[in-house]
């Protein structure tokens, strides 16, 4: 992880870290903080606790997003301080809706100059974001709206499993991990476990991201904590509740960053510090998918 973040995410990069409630790569976020990256623009539908941490640590100077908050809890206080009071620095916002963001990634991933969608009419969003424009229907119907492609410099994508070559498989909520990866100039795949090529190739329909477009593969079990990885661990809801109090108080927030990020060598240390009791409380039971037969045609 250290090497991947160091070499693939220079200061000033436009970085997407997606994962819709699921597979949010906190491990990479913490590494960005640990390496004191500067002036990053974070692309993410839902800047949540990870964005609050990056904002508090001074790593990000802008957000491209559609919903910001601590899901199920309330506000991101560090982000709000920066937006409402430029405290300690302003945070540049480029704001869409969820579908607008997904459409931007899709255009970026598809080599399209724009993506059309039936949204935004009557909303004030186009007034505050000139990149949201109307487009004529070439068949003479009502105009619709369009958004431009989003092509991050680098996408960091957490998945359940990947091969050493970067073929990445996801189950549960896929969000827009695939689109954000294909849209990016460089791709870092972070996984719960690295598996053999054979495991990947025994179920090729699950491969959402091919190694072909991947620049680095990092194994970081537990790397989504406090969010979750389907089948591996649950969301740590108490953490989200605790974060509200931490994030309200800049002193506590700085202490938290020091204790849980700066003073730790890597995510393995974070995982260990959380302790086995906490991890086992988050472990789900078994709910196997069952198998299908691809057939041996040799």
């Amino acid at each position, binding site marked *: 992880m250290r090497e991947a973040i160091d070499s693939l995410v220079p200061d000033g990069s436009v970085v997407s870290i997606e994962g819709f409630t699921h597979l949010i790569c906190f491990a990479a976020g913490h590494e960005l903080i640990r390496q004191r990256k500067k002036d990053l623009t974070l692309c993410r539908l839902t800047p949540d606790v990870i964005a609050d941490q990056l904002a508090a640590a001074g790593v990000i100077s802008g957000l491209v997003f559609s919903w910001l908050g601590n899901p199920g809890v309330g506000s991101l206080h560090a982000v709000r301080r920066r937006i409402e009071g430029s405290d300690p620095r302003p945070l540049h916002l480029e704001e869409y809706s969820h579908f607008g963001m997904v459409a931007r990634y899709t255009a970026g991933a598809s080599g399209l100059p724009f993506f059309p969608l039936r949204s935004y009419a009557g909303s004030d969003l186009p007034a505050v974001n000139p990149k949201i424009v109307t487009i004529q229907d070439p068949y003479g119907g009502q105009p619709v709206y369009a958004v431009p492609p989003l092509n991050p410099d680098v996408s960091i994508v957490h998945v359940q499993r990947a091969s050493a070559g970067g073929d990445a498989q996801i189950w549960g*909520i896929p969000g827009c991990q695939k689109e954000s990866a294909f849209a990016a100039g460089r791709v870092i795949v972070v996984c719960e476990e690295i598996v053999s090529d054979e495991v990947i190739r025994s179920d090729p329909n699950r491969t959402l991201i091919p190694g072909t477009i991947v620049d680095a593969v990092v194994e970081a079990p537990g790397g989504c904590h406090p969010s979750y990885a389907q089948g591996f661990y649950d969301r740590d809801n108490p953490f989200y509740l605790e974060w509200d109090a931490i994030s309200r108080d800049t002193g506590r927030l700085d202490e938290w960053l020091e204790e849980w990020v700066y003073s730790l060598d890597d995510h393995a240390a974070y995982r260990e510090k959380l302790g086995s009791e906490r991890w086992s409380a988050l472990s789900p039971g078994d709910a196997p998918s069952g198998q299908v037969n691809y057939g041996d045609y040799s």
Partner: protein
Amino acid sequence: MSYTPTEMMVVAAARNLAGVRNCFVGIGIPNLACSLAKRSVAPDLELIYESGVVGADPARLPLSIGDPSLVVGARSVTSMFDLFSLYLQRGLIDVAFLGAAQVDRNGSINTTVLGPYEKPDVRLPGSGGAVEIALNADQVFIIVNQSRRTFVEKLDFVTSPGHIGPTTGRGNGPALVVTQLGTFRFVNGEMTLKSLHPGVSREQVFDATGWEMSVDTAVEENEAPTSDELDVLRNLDPNRVYLK
């Protein structure tokens, strides 16, 4: 049986889902309303979440829109692109729930900022999927706590439009508003008091509205939550996370 104003809101919303098939669910009160409706007036209700989950049947109270318990045992789990394209924009959603920090007489909603956009007094979460939901779901149900702070003459920011005339969407806009005081429908695009919860007066509604609220020719009084409804609800949220 005694009940809280929130329980009354959930029950009123659930009853309005009678016969509905495909419902776009939000976390919290909408989720409780849909779960209650599925166990009462709308057994065929399909719970659809913007996280890409279709036909969820969660084994526990989901705490986020993408809770892992929504996925397990669902009918289908898909990408957000497919969810927004093939379900919402295609017109498959019969009813969608939206919350609001501010709502106006046309059912337009603000969830973006209080104060000016560039330098807000309070930065709110933003649209999420609300603007496309508002425009493309067949009907929108708005659930909101009613006060002069939330029912305002003029929104600080229009996040999601209500009845504002022709749009790029395919839906019919807001159909119902449920608050702790009563329910409202839209007559010629204007929010109109339709029913009052037990013990609530029209004056309470007027006092909690920042404009002159229209009133239906026949305002009904809602039946209090039945013990069956309350049993189901309290089982769904035993720790009263949302049923405060």
